[in-house]
């Protein structure tokens, strides 16, 4: 019957070949056709090229060609002294590099900071590679053992290590400590908050909603001010609390509220059948959540979590407003150094800070994208 009138068929008689992404010369031909198709398109292309050139060319000249690569003092970075246009003054960064990395951490103790950096990298890299073995052990090391190790190494006062006050910490050290603690301390709190918000118990769910919406509704600086100026009043009079710890508490509460909302999205995506299956197996609330629901929910929201971590990493710069000098704060205070006062010092400092912040955030966002693609294969929502 169907063969009697093939021209009337609503189904294509032959399979349609899938569209392939053009490669090599064909690909360039496609790109060119998207650049020079029609007069309007040509005008747009020329204008875009002009904008790109006026932005890119001076930037590259500043960073590379006109830059001063070695020198000992400000004189090497002065146009009058060198006799050519001057770009970035990299010797300024080299001279201040230790301060940007460690703040005023005692010079002979800096190996401790380096050990902590390397240990962190060694634990983090295999954790990020999905195919690396011993995931559970690795995660335990990074989230449980590592903080204790880093605390002992950085603060000292034990095992023959001299005590180092947090007052002298600074630069990249502060940025990384804030980011790491902000992630590791707030994640468990965020899971509890997300579970509380989804709870059937009205008092618990309404109180968690108030808590989450409160921290999400106020700007981070007010949270930092709250932690710095208000928190000491909340504690018994004879307790003194370190300035960095105060800020860490503020950052943890703030980021826990944001992470809780991300995790709640993952909890909502878990099908009812999972809860019913767990109930059929006789699991109670905590076992259902801990063994069945939360692991799946967290896996769903890894990209969202990484995006929150990027936001946290960028937000750590705000601590300079409460006089804790992270990377950006150290760079800004270095501008006041009369030994390196040149017209290009400020731009050089911003270029250096910008490259670091951009590389870290961009790498994290690419990783989130990679995980999203990877996870998409086995998730059908």
């Amino acid at each position, binding site marked *: 019957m169907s063969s009697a009138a093939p021209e009337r068929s609503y189904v294509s008689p032959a399979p349609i070949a899938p569209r392939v992404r053009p490669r090599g010369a064909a690909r360039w031909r496609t790109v060119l056709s998207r650049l020079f198709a029609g007069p309007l398109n040509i005008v747009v292309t020329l204008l875009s090229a002009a904008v790109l050139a006026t932005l890119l060319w001076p930037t590259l000249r500043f960073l590379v060609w006109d830059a001063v690569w070695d020198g000992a003092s400000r004189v090497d970075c002065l146009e009058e002294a060198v006799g050519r246009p001057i770009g970035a003054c990299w010797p300024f960064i080299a001279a201040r590099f230790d301060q940007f990395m460690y703040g005023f951490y005692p010079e002979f103790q800096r190996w401790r900071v380096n050990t902590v950096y390397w240990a962190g990298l060694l634990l983090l890299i295999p954790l990020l590679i999905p195919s690396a073995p011993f995931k559970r052990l690795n995660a335990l090391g990074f989230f449980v053992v590592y903080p204790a190790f880093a605390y002992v190494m950085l603060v000292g006062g034990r095992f023959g290590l001299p005590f180092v006050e947090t007052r002298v910490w600074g630069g990249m050290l502060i940025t990384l400590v804030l980011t790491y603690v902000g992630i590791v301390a707030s994640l468990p709190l965020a899971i509890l908050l997300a579970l509380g918000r989804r709870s*059937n118990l009205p008092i618990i769910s309404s109180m968690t909603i108030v808590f989450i919406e409160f921290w999400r509704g*106020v*700007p981070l600086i007010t949270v930092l*001010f709250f932690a710095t100026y*208000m928190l000491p009043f909340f504690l018994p009079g004879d307790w003194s609390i370190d300035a960095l710890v105060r800020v860490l508490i503020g950052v943890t509460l703030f980021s826990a509220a944001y992470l809780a909302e991300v995790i709640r999205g993952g909890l909502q995506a878990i099908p009812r059948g999972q809860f019913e299956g767990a109930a059929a197996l006789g699991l109670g609330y905590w076992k259902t959540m801990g063994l069945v629901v939360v692991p799946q929910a967290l896996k769903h929201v890894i990209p969202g979590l990484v995006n929150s971590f990027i936001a946290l990493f960028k937000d750590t710069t705000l601590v300079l407003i409460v006089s804790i000098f992270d990377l950006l704060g150290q760079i800004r205070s270095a501008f006041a150094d009369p030994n390196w006062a040149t017209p290009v010092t400020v731009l050089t400092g911003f270029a250096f*800070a*910008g490259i670091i*912040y951009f590389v870290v*955030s961009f790498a994290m*966002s690419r990783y989130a994208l990679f995980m999203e693609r990877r996870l998409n294969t086995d998730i059908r929502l």
Partner: protein
Amino acid sequence: MAAESQHPGRRPLAAFYDPKIRATAYQLVFLLVVAWGCYQVALNVSANLENQRIATGFGFLTEPAGFAINQTLIAYREGDSYARVFLVGLLNTLLVAGVGIIFATVIGFLVGIARLSPNWLLARLATGYVELIRNLPLLFQIMFWYLAVLGALPHPRQSLSFGFAPLLQGLAEKLSALEGIGVPALLNSVAEWLGPPGVYLNNRGLILPEPAVTTGGMVVLAIFAAGVVAALWLRRWSRRRQDATGRRFPVGRAALLLVVGLPLAASLFLGAPLSMQAPELRGFNFVGGVRLLPEFVALVIALSTYTAAFIAEVVRAGILAVPRGQSEAAAALGLRRGHALRLIVVPQALRIIVPPLTNQYLNLTKNSTLAAAIGYPDLFSVFAGSALNITGQAIEIIAIIMAVYLAISLLTSVGMSWYNARIQLAER
């Protein structure tokens, strides 16, 4: 009851296995713990305040504040009350947020649409903008604009000037090779006819012409406002008539006449009463005009470009979310491309764009507190900065500031749920 009589031994525990009773018990324990924590905090706070001899309460709001503020939208003198300081700061915050939102929306929509452009280079350029801006901390960007860009600007005598006249003069200089056919001379004379540009940028800030207020000007403004109201009414009336009878009315042209034509005619009739008073360089500074603080300019640039990168993504997602079938169906119904966009695609895209867009506006407003880092007198920096330092009323001041931002957030979210309920698809 039967179960109870069968297991008399388990009676005391039976209540604990009842989920309802258990849930109530858990919640009561939780509530008690929270209440106990709050009570302890309150005890500590009152003991600490007593020890440090800090007076509590909001009485300080009526006391005189002994500091000056370098940008005030309402009259303020050193020695006015802290309540006045609060108001000045709040208005400054609203100003920077309002201006920032306008610029962020314009840039964000342009970049978002550019990312979807069929032109390869333009799309890549827009992508590069979004990636660069989103991966750098906002505070970094604010300080960059303030210290590296605006800090490097010349003194008032060498101000950069903006406008058509300096542009033409610059062009005349570049085209000096065409002296023979008199092109530079022509450009220069046009520039002279246009007069001084009136927009200057230097290390003291951005200087703009000030609108001169006259009675005639007020009349023209009133006519303009009346024209806007009339145009809105006309649109409603014509839509109702079209729904009822199918007859159409050229609303666009009529509205143009009402909003632009009428005020223009009035101003010609009254002898051009709307004029701008251009700033003039006298000695080492400008006289006349409006001066915007460099802190304000840096904050607006940083906030609007930063938020624009996020808005661009929101806009792109919203447009991509409207299925192709919608515009194809519109074409099949015989709608022209403009009508299909205006009546079919844009309303559906807006339904998706508006909620996250509002969220971005809220973020911009909250991020304006970073003004504290460069010293723009917004609510946070005048109140939690100067006022907190002088009075020492940390608890009251931080509570007031948190309450203000919380109120803004809650109002926005209430508005959003109202909007969402209004535009939600009526699903079957």
